[in-house]
């Protein structure tokens, strides 16, 4: 769409639900109460890999207050196992996974038994009394051992390899042979996780008389869970209702099916009583989805003039013992293969991603899903190659960027980018700061013996996927969203939307879109999300899509409701609907702006005196659903970090951080900005602090917030945000791209480049995150 869109689209209005939340009126899963509620606690495997020889639940079951103890076999009587397959990756080995381990536990923290009692405390006490005879089996922890070693995690597979994805295009060998400079590096990325401050949890309530399951679930995708619960628990999907109330952060962690969660539903079915469970923080660290344990061998070939000729990447990543369900664990490797070199023009690539099983926690989707890996590998290699060629690394980037004239850009990775706006992004960066002065300042500092450096990363974020990925792959995940609008008798509008909120602000964006589409004040619209019984079956939150997809559905529903209101008004006023308009909630004469009818009058006639409307049955309701036909919508941008390293302690201090971003139509800059900043801080955490440390037996060593370090306010500097604006895509939609993963995608790369710029003063470098003080001091040769 090219015509300017009406207000309040584009207005920086605060996120509506936060007014309730600042007053302590949030209602998270842990705040929900239901009569006769029971509480669950899990017995989890203390071993990375062990056979279960016997389980004695006698003492636990005899504990006063305990209602039931369930083993894996008990739960399996009502809950089918699953495989995390994906039809686009037919060679993906996806072992059968049960809600609770039955004969073998394959990660430390895997749920093995479930105690249900009248209180959580009693359930935990009793869980400690469950006696399990274990035979420890050889554990496989690190990715290389998993690939090359003899021990098998799933003996029947005959291999620990889950999936190999590869792609080759152009003459890679010739490009490297003819290159003026080849830079290569082995990168190591630390396994980390999302750490929503509200842990995962649910309350499952089953009514056996109607075989009706109602689940209050801290989840990003309630419709997906409705389908998963129905299929795996043998229930009619239209009698399964999943309600995601206030959700305390998600970041991809609350996006899959979890064995412990469906076991709680199964327990509710077996007991005919509601059962609640919330993960404690140790359970979160051991059993939440992890991500990004990668070892990447990367090479780039550069011509003498600085043209990028080719990339060659070989990625090995470890995903724990199973492929996550329902989306599979193909996504991270896929992003590395598909998005290496994404911002640039080049002719040839060889890329391979090997996913291996290991005896650590499950790994899959966390904000950015593999894109931060592709970005960091690309950007660090470019810096290294430019330095090797004696070229300016930023000039090399500017020289090779995909430009407007190249669009649509068919990358050698096989991905076609319809829209990228790097020229606008660089222009915005140059307008925002004096890059050369900043670099001189760093160089001067280094000349004076300080370790100060600047890193610049260009990134592409794939957002708002169409149904060609999960749908075509036979995965029951919706890429659409829907919106229903109802005009109430006194003129207010009620919206039922399938988008979901974990705080990102899409609800407020959708409200703005509806207000603009109908022509009413923002406050005239109320909205309900996160309830599968009331809204269209939609995707919810994943892959930066709520505004782009759900916003589009809202716009279309809003335009349809507006059309009906105008039609009713025209019939009542004996006027031409085309000569009327709705402004600020009033039907007006379009030419003069003079008020003709209020929406309250339309609502009252339509609901209570419909016979007065000549020739029409007032519906006063409009629905629309929308799914993008494009495979994805790209957002893009730059991230710039300036760091200073303390040569004695090895600590990296952030001095300045700038994000330039282009994401099409910005519905609400206030919310978009802090959403991007939040993503940046998660990327900074990955770059500097966060790593799940395991020993060789698969034991997690840092499962508390005191040991696993997430960024706190003092470690982070202000993050300068600059929006670049490029010509709209020109389709028939609003032209919104997602922003949720942008910050995370580029932040680690920018920091790693800056750290290496700083270390260059001593001829040192690092290709591993997090850049802990110990690793920095090792790189400097101090320890």
């Amino acid at each position, binding site marked *: 769409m090219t015509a300017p869109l009406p207000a309040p689209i584009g207005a920086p209005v605060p996120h509506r639900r936060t007014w309730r939340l600042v007053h302590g009126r*949030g209602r998270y899963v842990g705040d929900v109460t239901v009569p006769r509620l029971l509480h669950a606690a899990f017995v989890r495997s203390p071993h990375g890999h062990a056979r279960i020889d016997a389980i004695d639940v006698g003492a636990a079951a005899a504990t006063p207050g305990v209602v039931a103890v369930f083993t894996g076999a008990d739960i399996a009587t009502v809950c089918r196992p699953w495989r995390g397959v994906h039809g686009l990756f037919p060679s993906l080995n996806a072992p059968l996974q049960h809600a609770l381990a039955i004969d073998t536990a394959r990660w430390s923290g895997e749920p093995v038994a479930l105690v249900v009692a009248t209180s959580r405390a009693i359930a935990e006490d009793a869980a400690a009394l469950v006696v399990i005879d274990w035979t420890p089996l050889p554990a496989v922890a690190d990715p290389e051992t998993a690939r090359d070693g003899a021990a098998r995690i799933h003996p029947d597979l005959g291999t620990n390899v889950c999936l190999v994805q590869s792609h080759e295009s152009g003459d890679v060998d010739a490009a490297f042979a003819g290159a003026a400079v080849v830079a290569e590096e082995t990168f190591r990325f630390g396994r980390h996780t999302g750490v929503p401050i509200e842990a995962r949890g649910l309350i499952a309530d089953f009514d056996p008389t109607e075989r009706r399951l109602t689940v209050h679930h801290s989840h990003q995708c309630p419709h997906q869970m409705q389908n998963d619960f129905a299929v795996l628990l043998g229930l009619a999907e239209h009698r399964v209702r999943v309600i995601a109330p206030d959700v305390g952060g998600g970041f991809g962690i609350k996006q899959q099916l979890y064995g412990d969660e469906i076991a709680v539903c199964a327990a509710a079915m077996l007991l005919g009583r509601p059962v609640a469970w919330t993960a404690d923080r140790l359970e979160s660290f051991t059993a939440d989805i992890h991500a990004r344990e990668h070892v990447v061998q990367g090479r780039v070939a550069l011509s003498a003039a600085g043209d990028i000729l080719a990339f060659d990447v070989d990625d090995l990543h470890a995903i724990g013992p199973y492929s996550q369900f329902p989306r599979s664990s193909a996504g991270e490797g896929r992003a590395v293969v598909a998005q290496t070199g994404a911002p640039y023009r080049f002719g040839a690539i060889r890329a391979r991603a090997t996913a291996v099983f290991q005896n650590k926690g499950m790994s899959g989707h966390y904000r950015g899903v593999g894109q931060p890996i592709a970005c960091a590998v690309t950007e660090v290699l470019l810096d290294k190659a430019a330095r090797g060629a004696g070229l300016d690394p930023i000039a090399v980037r500017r020289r090779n960027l995909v430009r407007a004239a190249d669009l649509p850009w068919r990358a050698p990775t096989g991905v076609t980018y319809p829209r990228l706006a790097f020229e606008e992004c660089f222009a915005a960066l140059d307008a925002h700061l004096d890059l050369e002065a900043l670099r001189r300042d760093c160089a001067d500092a280094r000349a004076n013996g300080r370790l100060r450096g600047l890193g610049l990363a260009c990134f592409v974020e794939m957002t708002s996927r169409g149904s060609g990925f999960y749908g075509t792959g036979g995965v029951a995940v919706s890429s659409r969203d829907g919106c229903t609008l109802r005009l109430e008798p006194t003129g207010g509008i009620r919206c039922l939307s399938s988008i979901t909120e974990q705080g990102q602000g899409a609800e407020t964006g959708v409200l703005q879109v509806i207000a603009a589409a109908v022509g009413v004040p923002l406050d005239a619209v109320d909205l309900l999300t996160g309830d599968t019984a009331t809204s269209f079956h939609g995707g919810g939150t994943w892959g930066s899509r709520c505004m782009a997809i759900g916003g589009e559905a809202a716009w279309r529903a809003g335009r349809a409701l507006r059309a009906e209101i105008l039609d009713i008004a025209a019939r009542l006023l004996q006027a031409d609907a085309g000569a009327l308009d709705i402004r600020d909630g009033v039907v007006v004469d379009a030419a003069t702006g003079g008020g003709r009818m209020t929406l309250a009058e339309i609502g009252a006639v339509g609901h209570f005196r419909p016979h007065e409307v000549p020739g029409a049955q007032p519906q006063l309701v409009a629905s629309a659903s929308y799914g993008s036909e494009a495979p994805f919508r790209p957002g893009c941008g730059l991230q710039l970090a300036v760091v200073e390293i303390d040569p004695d302690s090895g600590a990296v201090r952030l001095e300045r951080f700038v994000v330039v971003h282009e994401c099409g139509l910005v519905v609400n800059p206030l919310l978009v900005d802090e959403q991007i900043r939040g993503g940046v801080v998660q990327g900074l955490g990955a770059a500097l602090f966060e790593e799940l440390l395991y020993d060789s037996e698969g034991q997690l060593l840092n499962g508390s*917030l005191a040991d696993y370090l997430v960024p*706190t306010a003092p470690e982070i500097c202000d993050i300068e945000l600059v929006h670049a604006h490029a010509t709209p895509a020109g389709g028939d939609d609003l032209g919104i791209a997602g922003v949720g993963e942008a910050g995370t995608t580029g932040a680690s790369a920018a920091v790693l480049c800056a750290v290496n710029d700083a270390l260059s003063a001593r001829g040192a470098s690092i290709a591993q995150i997090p850049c802990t003080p110990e690793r920095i001091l090792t790189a400097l040769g101090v320890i």
Partner: protein
Amino acid sequence: MPMIPITCTINGETVEATVSTRDTLADLLRDTLGLTATHVGCEHGVCGACTILFDGRTARACLVLAAQADGAEIETLEGATASGRIAALQKAFHDHAALQCGFCTPGMLLAAAEFLEDHPAPSRAEIREALSGNLCRCTGYQAIVDAVAAVAKGTEP
């Protein structure tokens, strides 16, 4: 589990309760009294989501036993809201998008309010340092700093 009778003042009301020796103050507030604005994010004293006022100073409700509340004066976000004493901070948090999911927010608000009482004109660095005991995983902290700074400067009503 042994039970202990306690009497304390919570949000200005006298509360008599019989608590289990194992219950934390967070359990008492949330499960017994339904004061669910006190959030529990870690139960080991790191995240700050459970921050409340205990005899006038911030404390972590997950690290205080309910039995220790005997004789104490406690305020939760519900109480601070009702009294209006943090209204400016609440409005500033909303206006600046200083929260997304809101799970950290009760603790942030009470910690920020205490800090501003002692430091009426803080620098941004001081605000960041003061909030170092409260984790937020959604925002980039910047909007939180902006909101606290706005209240300190009186640019927030």
